[in-house]
């Protein structure tokens, strides 16, 4: 199977562990990731906070390039996914503003966005029945005994009209995927709470307060690990804990562990809070 792929800036840098594990898992499932040719940054929070035009025009260039290359677009970065889907929704609703932006970007890129892309988050892609069945059948090292809390964060499912592929207050898809891998999924009430997102650099104090609470609650729920599908959530939890006690893994890293893939060191060694001792003690690596 071949799908369009938009890694975004993070998966080449601060979330290189997410990028490497995603590529390895997809390779082992015979899913070919066809990267959008010459993609640019989606603009993320800084774009919509400072320029309404750039917030739409930057992701629109990517959607046009992706539409020229295929029908599906899989996006692992939750921030990029959110921006792509919101832009897709904005163009599809066809307001006069949307028509104008689409026309203007077309004069730059060479064609308009037709709104035909099927944009999926990687977690949504893996949660499709047939893919989930395949995942389950490939598990050679079930994550038995590993206690985890699924941490969805903000941008994966909000604003729900444009982006949600699961219940925006009580999501289950990451829970189900982790369950399929054999992990013990602990219930907690902080699945959808914010980590502080893009304030990581300018207001680390705020991120610190929010992550300390999240980690405290994860611990209360009995978790050994937090599991996420978002580079910002991962970075904030990984870098802003005073005692560095709670590792946070990408769900793709746990899939790789359950598949018993070779070369897991390549991405696991990139974490600030090393998850390897716990994975080793559970005989997973």
């Amino acid at each position, binding site marked *: 199977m071949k799908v369009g792929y938009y890694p975004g800036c993070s998966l*080449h840098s*601060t979330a290189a562990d997410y990028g490497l594990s995603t590529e390895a898992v997809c390779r082992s499932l015979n899913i070919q990731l066809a990267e959008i040719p010459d993609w640019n940054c989606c603009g993320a929070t*800084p774009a919509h906070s400072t320029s309404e035009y*750039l917030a739409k025009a930057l992701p629109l260039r990517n959607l046009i390039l992706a539409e020229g290359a295929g029908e599906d677009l899989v996006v692992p970065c939750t921030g990029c996914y959110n921006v792509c889907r919101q832009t897709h929704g904005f163009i599809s609703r066809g307001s006069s503003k949307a028509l104008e932006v689409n026309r203007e970007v077309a004069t730059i890129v060479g064609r308009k966005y037709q709104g035909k892309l099927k944009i999926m988050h990687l977690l949504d892609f893996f949660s499709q029945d047939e893919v989930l069945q395949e995942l389950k059948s490939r598990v050679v090292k079930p994550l038995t005994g590993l206690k985890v809390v699924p941490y969805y964060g903000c941008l994966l499912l909000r604003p729900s009209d444009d982006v949600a592929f699961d219940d925006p207050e009580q999501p289950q898809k990451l829970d189900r995927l982790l369950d399929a891998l054999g992990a013990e999924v602990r219930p907690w009430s902080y699945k*959808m709470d914010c980590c502080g997102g893009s304030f990581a650099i300018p207001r680390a104090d*705020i991120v610190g307060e929010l992550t300390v609470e999240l980690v405290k609650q994860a611990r209360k729920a009995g978790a050994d690990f937090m599991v996420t599908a978002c580079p910002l959530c991962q970075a904030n939890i990984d870098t802003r804990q005073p005692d560095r006690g709670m590792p946070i893994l990408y769900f793709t890293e746990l899939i790789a562990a359950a598949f018993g893939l070779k070369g897991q060191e390549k991405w696991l060694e*990139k974490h600030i809070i090393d998850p390897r001792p716990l994975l080793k003690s559970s005989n997973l690596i």
Partner: protein
Amino acid sequence: MENSVLAGDLRFEPAESFTRLIEKESSQPVSRCYQCKKCSAGCPVAPMADLHTNEVIRLVQLGDTERLLGSNRLWLCLSCKTCQARCPNGIDTSAVIDVLKGMVLKSGKAPAETRIPEFYKSFMDSVQRTGRLYELGMIGLYKLRTKTYMEDMGLGVEMLKRGKLKFLPERVKNLGQVREIFRKGREKK
């Protein structure tokens, strides 16, 4: 927004015109709000901000531009959209706040919070230069602008060692297209 005098004139003008302007620019039905405060109850930055989420909407209804545009809450909004998810009237306050932030930037007055807008600016400058975010360059710009040279130095080194920050930027090949998008963006302001 181009015909608005409000960005440059920050007086308290109780008038429906301001509400209408914000509703149009943000595409949010601000006048529907009946102050149930579910937005404020779920807001992660409520303890740090000088206005509650519901107060932002109320002040838009009242046309109190002075308090709104001088509020640190605009910049402390994380765009987590919890307020949007829970609003019984379908209002996305963070979209309203994006419009208000645009008014502050356009007015040329100093924002009520300095670091966050400087971070956004540094981020966008980096994207304009290479088409993709070059974290190290962006952090350098941000530190120069905020004079926070020593903050997070240890963490930065750890990230570099692990290959989570790259020494060299990635560039979009067709950078002219990205630059042209930025040029159009400046025209719109």
